[in-house]
């Protein structure tokens, strides 16, 4: 990995990004705005599942409202993240914290996708507040915790490379 990271670092693209002093901060800010969309969407959906917010709205309405923001956020996150990796490969690819972040990201995306599929199949089940609602709530809370973990490890990259 180190040799690969070094190779990327030596490319003219990588150098060009690093040499434009405002570029990395600017791309980080866009990356952060994308994460704001994602985390807020995930929190609002989970709050609805837990019956803590938007109780006047159906589960389907809330999902339709917020899931597009989540997926749009991911669409922005990917290219900005890739540019940041190209700009500073050792800080990312060579850093265990970064790989923890990627692992959590993969899991969070999988959870979100399976939630969306499940909701499409049986929206009513997600409205259920009875005793069987427990596993679904745990599922929803886990996804929020993962997103928060992604934010945390994202910040920790700066401390651990």
């Amino acid at each position, binding site marked *: 990995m180190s040799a690969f990271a070094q190779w990327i670092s030596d490319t003219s693209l990588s150098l060009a990004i690093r040499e434009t002093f405002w570029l990395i*901060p600017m791309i*980080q*800010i866009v990356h*952060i*705005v994308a*994460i*704001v*969309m994602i*985390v*807020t*969407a995930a*929190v*609002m959906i989970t*709050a609805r599942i837990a019956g803590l*917010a*938007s109780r*006047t*709205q159906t589960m389907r*309405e809330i999902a339709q*409202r917020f899931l597009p923001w989540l997926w749009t956020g991911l669409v922005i996150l990917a290219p900005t993240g890739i540019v940041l990796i190209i700009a500073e490969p050792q800080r990312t690819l060579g850093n265990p914290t970064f790989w923890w972040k990627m692992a959590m990201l993969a899991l969070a995306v999988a959870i979100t996708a399976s939630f969306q599929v499940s909701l499409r199949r049986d929206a009513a089940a997600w409205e259920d507040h009875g005793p069987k609602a427990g596993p679904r709530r745990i599922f929803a809370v886990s996804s929020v915790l993962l997103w*928060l973990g992604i*934010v*945390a490890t994202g*910040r*920790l990259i*700066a*401390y651990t490379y």
Partner: protein
Amino acid sequence: METMTGLLKWLESTPLALSIAQSTIAFPAIEIVHVIAITLVFGTIAIVDLRLLGLGSKNRAVTELCRDVLPWTWAAFGIAAISGALLFISQATQYAENPAFRMKMLLMLAAGINMAVFELITFRGVAKWDRDVPVVPAGRLAGAVSLVCWLGVVGFARWVGFTVGVPEQ
């Protein structure tokens, strides 16, 4: 201004500030809480702002949406303010002198004034534009100003991170 410098230096020398500055874990941990909180402040206020601009949640009454979402905004803001204060005291002088930090504070003040004007004046007539009709221009302006201010806060906050850095261990 000397009293300000004196105050800042005193803040930095408090046991609390020193413990944050000198601990390898405290600063990053508080910073992470701060970042998560600010993420939720911006995200939730954007939900309301987009409604005011007619760009989101259009099926919901403004009053109902505000009642539903704003408590989260305030809770997140409280956590952001407390964690922010803890971060601030650990390097008070450097932050106070930093132009990006000052811009961040200025934009938050602007957001606060914008909110006060909206709540105290514009919102009084909300019954007329609560649902189904476009929000009055003053309300749309408030939504736009709020989005710009908070986006600016996020941007300058990132710039502060770049320019001030973390406490030297």
